[in-house]
């Protein structure tokens, strides 16, 4: 894992000292809320529906056991015993007191963490494939590049006040687990024709009130040119992105309005001007950062232990929640934070500590956070899967549902969020309970729920998406079908009139029933069936009786 150098440690230390002073001045009345608000936001502190919320950055979703234990400690000491893992691989505490936040930041700094740039119109936490460095299907570990981008973008003076927030995601696999096509910039690390590493660069994707799939503006960017090219993109956006209307300020609107080709041409022009300057990445520097992410000391003679145990639940879990590892004899384990009827992404302090123990003992001290609100043990010996499973079962997190209908993404929604119009979590809970018994029969199905148009729950790219709205003061839910956040990225389409809180659960069940009835074989996934059938039979099932 990456370790802070002196510069990292110093800028975090300075930032905490600054924020401690700012909090003190706010509490004493020296700063007004209008003056303080942008300062707290740049340090990850929101005022939500019921209390403050602190969003902590987990760069590219990678945590050590020590860091996870620290998060558990903070949850127990300063919050209410729980943390919430988000769709941006971050962690949110929902109940911190403003007076305690400087102390929390001190605690985080002890384990090389912070909350800087988790809000505000700046370059946010860089996300990455949660299987990075372990997946059998990647060309290289993308996290060194994510770390390089983190260093470049942290406190970048030119890009601290962009027209709007800016999100970058990185993957190194043809199977996109990082949803790069719905990010402001999506980077696909790949092998170039000359044998070197480079990137396909996608720009202008995003969800929110104007969902747009990103455009590919360069297929073969050499790795040495990564930062200069990103800088060129950001410069074009910073100059031309709209600042008069926050709803039209994201880069996706700029790319859409002037066209991808024109945008790419402007980037190219700026890039040619700067590409041979200070941002050229020296091979030695790439190597230095990459060394932090060196593969752990895998067992060179891994036991070919029998995975099977006289336990059907364990067999299901191995089938659903483990993924092929690049190292023979190892597996990637997804820890589902979606127990049936549970709250997506929530973990108690005790659960975090138990997972930290498991990671330390069985996964070379590493944990990952996925944008699907699960945790991952990236390097587990096949021979240890039974022990890991039992450890997870002991804390209620051994649900064998990774990628299934109960593995639901849900934003905090109206239960916590000041922006939300409707609750997301209870809808996820009810759908989970409703579909649990049939989830193996249904197969892969991604249900994503947002409590407002900002789409933190990724409803636009759900196979089944749900958008909470407010209708005459009450919660109402629109249903969308056919989206994907993967390499086949697509935006879901609204089916028709929305539903009440109970009706939306029934509606999802009807969609599932229709799919099961009409799929050609058990192996035809939902998206394939929807693509073949179109929306008509699903709309018929949803609305025919109401006509």
């Amino acid at each position: 894992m990456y370790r802070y150098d002196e510069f990292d440690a110093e800028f975090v230390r300075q930032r905490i000292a600054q924020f401690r002073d700012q909090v003190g001045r706010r509490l004493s009345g020296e700063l007004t809320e209008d003056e303080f608000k942008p300062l707290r936001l740049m340090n990850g502190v929101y005022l939500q529906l019921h209390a403050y919320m602190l969003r902590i950055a987990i760069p590219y979703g990678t945590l050590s056991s020590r860091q996870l234990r620290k998060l558990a400690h903070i949850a127990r000491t300063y919050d209410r015993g729980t943390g919430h893992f988000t769709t941006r691989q971050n962690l949110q505490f929902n109940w911190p007191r403003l007076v305690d936040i400087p102390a929390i930041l001190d605690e985080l700094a002890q384990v090389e963490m912070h909350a800087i740039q988790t809000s505000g119109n700046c370059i946010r936490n860089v996300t990455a494939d949660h299987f990075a460095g372990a997946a059998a299907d990647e060309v290289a570990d993308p996290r060194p590049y994510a770390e390089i981008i983190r260093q470049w973008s942290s406190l970048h003076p030119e890009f601290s006040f962009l027209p709007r927030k800016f999100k970058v995601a990185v993957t190194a696999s043809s199977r996109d687990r990082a949803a790069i096509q719905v990010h402001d910039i999506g980077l696909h690390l790949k092998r170039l024709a000359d044998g070197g590493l480079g990137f396909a660069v996608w720009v202008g994707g995003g969800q929110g009130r104007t969902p747009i799939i990103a455009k590919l503006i360069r297929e073969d960017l050499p790795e040495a040119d990564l930062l200069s090219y990103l800088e060129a993109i950001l410069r074009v956006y910073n100059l031309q992105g709209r600042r008069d209307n926050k709803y039209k300020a994201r880069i996706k609107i700029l790319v859409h309005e002037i066209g991808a080709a024109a945008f790419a041409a402007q980037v190219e022009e700026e890039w040619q001007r700067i590409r041979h300057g200070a941002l050229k990445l020296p091979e030695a520097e790439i190597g230095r950062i990459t060394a932090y992410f060196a593969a752990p000391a895998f067992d060179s003679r891994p036991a070919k232990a029998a995975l099977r145990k006289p336990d059907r639940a364990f067999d299901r879990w191995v089938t659903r929640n483990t993924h092929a590892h690049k190292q023979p004899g190892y597996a990637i384990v997804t820890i589902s934070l979606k127990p049936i009827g549970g709250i997506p992404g929530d973990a108690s302090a005790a659960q975090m500590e138990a997972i930290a123990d498991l990671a330390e003992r069985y996964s070379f001290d590493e944990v990952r956070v996925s944008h699907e609100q699960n945790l991952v043990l990236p390097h587990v010996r096949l021979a240890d899967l039974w022990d890991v499973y039992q450890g997870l079962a002991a804390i209620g997190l051994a649900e064998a549902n990774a990628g299934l209908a109960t593995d639901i993404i849900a934003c905090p929604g109206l239960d916590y969020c000041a922006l939300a119009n409707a609750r997301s979590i209870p809808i996820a809970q009810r759908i989970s309970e409703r579909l649990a018994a049939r989830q193996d029969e249904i197969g892969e199905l991604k249900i994503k729920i947002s409590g407002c148009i900002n789409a933190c729950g990724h409803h636009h790219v759900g196979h089944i998406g749900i958008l909470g709205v407010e209708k005459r003061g009450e919660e109402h839910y629109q249903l969308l079908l056919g989206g994907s956040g993967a390499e086949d990225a697509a935006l879901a389409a609204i089916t028709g009139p929305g539903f009440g809180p109970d009706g939306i659960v029934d509606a999802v069940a009807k969609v599932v029933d229709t799919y099961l009835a009409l799929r050609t074989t058990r192996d035809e996934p939902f998206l394939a069936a929807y693509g073949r059938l179109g929306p008509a039979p699903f709309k018929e099932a949803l609305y025919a009786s109401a006509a």
Partner: protein
Amino acid sequence: MSKSPATSVLTANRLGDGIVVFLDFEGAWSENLAEAVVAHSPDEVRALEDRGAYDAAHNIVVEPYLVEVRETAGGLVPTRQRERVRVAGPSILDDVPGYVAPAPGAVVRQAHHGDGDRSSEPHTQPRPELVEGRATPGTLVVRQAHHEDPERHAPDSTQAQAA
């Protein structure tokens, strides 16, 4: 502030810990909606707005705003679901793993107390009064101390440059 609904209470978040509070009939900020003072007329609504702006400017609370309520036999009920959730707290707390409710009365105190003025700035206006009338929890008649004050809508204007 937003539009002024006819039957309203004033809510905000407490500065130190962000907890949801309501202005009560004694002019304090309560965590309990049942203790909130209710404004029925435009003048009463305006007085609540004044008090909210004043207390926000003096660093007692953050982001005050009016909430439309219905007065029912069971007590005050916000008309919007959003505000009902905000009053009741997250609807899913029973399912939050490891959730530990705060100890009763765990209130964050500010650095200064007294009449509500937490500001280091000299204040130029008195705190808008909430006085007399049907002074029972849930109802209130207010008399505005500076009803004709042309700066009434900007009680925090003297604080704005204080950074």
